[in-house]
């Protein structure tokens, strides 16, 4: 009976995984007349290579610091060290990832693939923000729509609606909402503040683009998790609540001692599902920003697709997929361990 589904699993999941794993150790191109060669760990090295460099500030002839326009000390340009400098061969081709001041000196954390590093950090950030927020918001909504009121199904439908719409469409709509000149959000904020609000180019600013994307993503899928929470809420026997009422428990006490313990399995499910979905962040990036401005909205899956397909570098894309697989696998194992049944 399981035959057909096993075949499908093998063809669409297991085989591609082993292919990606194998290809990540080669220089395979999407299509190329050149033969494929085994290159060992080179793809992973070029993704994960990091280095540090400490630079002293520039000084004039008498030893005084040369200050920039903003009054801060100035430093020699990094490219003097990272481009064909025979004294720093281990930094060749690296770029600044992050830098900070340490006393007078400036410390640079360099990476051979800054775009990948930003995608990695963004993806983790996305998961860390979306998982708790979306889960909590969904639970709140579920508690609200779990009441026996007239027309409660209408509210359930409204909260669930964004889930039914394709992410591509939602992302396109939110691009209009976030528009820097006459977008809905800017217009609304200007209206609420009687014109005092200055329009923000939400998706065009490095400081707001990723936050805007996170907010929109939470909104889009919150209805789905609300329904899961709701089904969990409805499995809690009514007599437990009755008992709590008789004992004179407050609403908070009822939630902490009746509702939450009854939702334990649901919570594990919701947490794991959100984490998985969040790691797969792609559509929003592709439709809304293409990873910009200045890589502030890059994600791992987007980079895997960009490289494998757009840049025709299947080996590079595969290497990212393999890394993503290892990350998700280890996080799943940790979650399994933390949420295991204690006897």
């Amino acid at each position: 009976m399981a035959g057909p589904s096993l075949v499908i699993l093998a063809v669409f999941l297991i085989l591609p995984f082993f292919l990606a794993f194998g290809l990540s150790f080669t220089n395979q191109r999407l299509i190329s007349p050149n033969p494929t060669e085994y290159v060992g760990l080179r793809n992973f090295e070029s993704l994960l290579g990091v280095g540090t460099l400490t630079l002293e500030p520039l000084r004039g002839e008498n030893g005084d610091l040369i200050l920039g326009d903003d009054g801060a000390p100035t430093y020699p340009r990094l490219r003097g060290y990272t481009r064909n400098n025979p004294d720093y061969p281990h930094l060749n081709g690296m770029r600044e990832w992050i830098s900070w001041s340490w006393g007078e000196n400036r410390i640079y954390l360099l990476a051979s693939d800054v775009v990948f590093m930003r995608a990695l950090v963004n993806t983790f950030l996305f998961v860390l923000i979306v998982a708790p927020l979306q889960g909590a918001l969904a639970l709140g909504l579920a508690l609200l729509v779990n009441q026996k009121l007239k027309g409660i199904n209408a509210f359930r439908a409204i909260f669930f609606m964004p889930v039914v719409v394709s992410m591509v469409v939602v992302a396109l709509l939110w691009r209009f909402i976030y528009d820097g000149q006459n977008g809905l959000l800017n217009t609304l904020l200007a209206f609420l503040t009687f014109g005092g609000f200055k329009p923000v180019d939400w998706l065009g600013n490095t400081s707001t683009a990723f936050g805007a994307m996170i907010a929109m993503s939470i909104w889009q899928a919150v209805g789905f998790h609300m329904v899961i929470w709701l089904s969990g809420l409805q499995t809690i026997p009514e007599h437990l609540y009755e008992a709590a009422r008789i004992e004179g428990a407050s609403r908070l006490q009822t939630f902490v001692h009746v509702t939450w313990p009854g939702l334990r399995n649901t919570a594990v499910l919701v947490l794991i599902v959100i984490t998985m979905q969040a790691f797969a962040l792609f559509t929003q990036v592709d439709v809304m920003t293409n990873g910009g401005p200045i890589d502030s909205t890059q994600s791992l899956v987007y980079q895997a697709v960009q490289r494998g397909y757009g840049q025709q570098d299947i080996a590079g894309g595969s290497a990212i997929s393999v890394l993503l697989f290892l990350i998700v696998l280890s996080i799943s194992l940790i979650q399994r361990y933390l949420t295991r049944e204690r006897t």
Partner: protein
Amino acid sequence: MGRFAKLTGVLALTTALAGPALAATELSMWYHGAGGDSAERDTFARIIKEFNESQSNWEVKLQAFPQIAYNDAITAAAVAGKLPDIIDVDGPIMPNWAWSKYMQPLPIPEEKFAKFLPGTLGHWDGKLYSVGLWDAAVAMYARKSVLEENGIRIPTLDKPWTLEEFDAALVKLKDSGKFDYPLDLAMNDKGEWYPYAFSPFLQSFGGDIVDRSTYKTAEGALNGEAAVKFGNWWQSLFERKLAPGTSQDTGDHDTGFLEGKYALQWNGNWAALKPLDKFGDDMLFLPAPDFGHGPKIGAASWQLGISAASKHADGAAKFIEFATQDKYLAAFSNAIGLIPATAEAAQMTENYKDGGKLAVFYDLSAKQALVRPVTPGYVFAAKEFRKALSDIADGADVQDTLDAAADAITADIEKNSGYGH
């Protein structure tokens, strides 16, 4: 006549009608214009219909894809071994597809296309792979009245704006306070537009996407002194709010110049008819500014070719020869305003005959056009160039961004063993 006889009659008639169609070999053709300009699609459909009716050996079937997904569809089809017989291909991409063996050389003697504009013929490795029914050109859309009001000199082909003149004009237009932005560069169009429309600026500054003398490296060309000078100016356009940046809304780009929100627009001849209708004699199509190394615009547009997988290259070649007749070149030009590929066809069109309203684009093509780097590595380099220009426009450090792009392009060339150069 009995019912049976009627039925037999109908059957006989339909069989007779279907007869020739059954004998014809089907040629599949893919094209990038789904959801785009319907006039272009209609013209293609007309040519295909007339070709299918003109002979009984071949029947071309057209399948259209949205432009944004077209190249990916071709790549995917090539990987899966499902390429159609005839494809259309963007000029600068062609070397990649020829090198990757998606395409085969045209089995048509080159003399057939002796009169075609150079930008319409796609060569790789000394062989002709693709031929275009039109070329395209980019110009600075402007209105005479606006320039005169602001005391800005109207440039000519012989004496285009210099960098200082152009920059001063933008500042003046901004200071007039009448426009949202003085210049619309179509930064919303994050596809091939960036390298097509903006790499000529870089070339006019004296840089390039790759070093064309060897095609082995981008070092020096994309991150040298000239390129950094270009990058700094480019960044300042957005810092000084002289042009809308990367988050520009597509709707604003489509209507902004027509509605007077933008004073100038860097746009292609395919969009020339609408403003011409609206502004009439006031409408100007100005040559590219000269940023120091001569004014430059991009050349080569979409062209027809035959896939390597095609088992019917002879039939496909017949179709391409049929489609490249002057009357069809003229038909396309009349439908969408593109530059017809031959002078004979140009005389048959409304806009490009002597004294025609768009004839100026002909001269622009002849005087300023420069093809994008002819190398299979262009596909990768174009993406890096686009990212670099977006990032610089968004405020990234100019030298570091250009360094990164140059390194990535050079590394890609090495990874591909020099791309057959």
